[in-house]
């Protein structure tokens, strides 16, 4: 089954790309954009029919490789 994972920077960790995107949007006239945080999205196909098991695998995958937990959080969606 497919598992979707989003990895984002922890709040408080500097995100210079997000900041640049926000400033560009403000410059384009989207004056109401107050903050942008950039993240990563993964679509993972796991050979597993049990949803619970697939999610457990995904969690391990995130902890061991996809997210650096010093600065990043992950969410399995």
């Amino acid at each position, binding site marked *: 089954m497919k598992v979707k994972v989003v990895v984002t920077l922890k709040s408080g960790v500097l995100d210079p790309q997000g900041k*640049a995107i926000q400033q560009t949007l403000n410059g384009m006239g989207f004056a109401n954009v107050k903050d942008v945080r950039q993240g990563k999205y993964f679509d993972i196909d796991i050979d597993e029919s049990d949803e619970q098991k697939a999610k457990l695998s995904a969690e391990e995958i995130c902890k061991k*490789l996809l997210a*650096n937990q*010093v600065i990043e959080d992950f969410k399995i969606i």
Partner: protein
Amino acid sequence: MNSSVIIFPGSNCDRDMDVALKKFGFKNKMVWHDDDKLPQSDLIVLPGGFSYGDYLRCGSIAGKSKIIQSVIDFANSGGLVLGICNGFQILTETGLLKGVLQQNKNIEFICKNIFVKVNNNENKFFENIDKDVLELHIAHNEGNYFCTEDELKSLEDNNQIAAYYCSSDGKVDDKSNPNGAIKNIAGIFNKKKNILGMMPHPERMIDQSLSGEDGSIFFENLLKNLK
């Protein structure tokens, strides 16, 4: 003294490092990332570059490569490990060094000479070095060192900060911080000080006609300390 430089797909400072190590008298071997055994070595070097294209996060894929377990075992048994630039990023991804190298604060790739102030001489890398401000070279997009407050306190308490970015006269200030690194940190050690990771490239400063020679001071001194 025997050294080994690990080559990952995308490493691009491996041969510069090989030239530098040999110039100062190391017998150096190149080791491919897909090997699982290290040759007998007194020093292992993880060179700069863009291992695995910097995919996912800089150093993350190299941090799981086949040779890495041998490097981790070597480091944990007290062996000397030096990671320069991408090598530093790999060392943080393996967990051998604390923290992480984030994208430069100004979102620019920075390539220039900088100065660093050596902060700790009580280790094989900097013991007896006769200069405490070195002019070295940086070339990176992700050199902005970051760690949690607790980790920073522990680095400071254990004297694990190897070098700070500074001015030519050794002043550590915001103006001389090229990439936004927390506290101007350019390099750190592990607790035992047998692992050093730093963003600046000493191997690019070993010839007066090309650059400068403060890298020579680093390598000459390192070899002397190992003998």
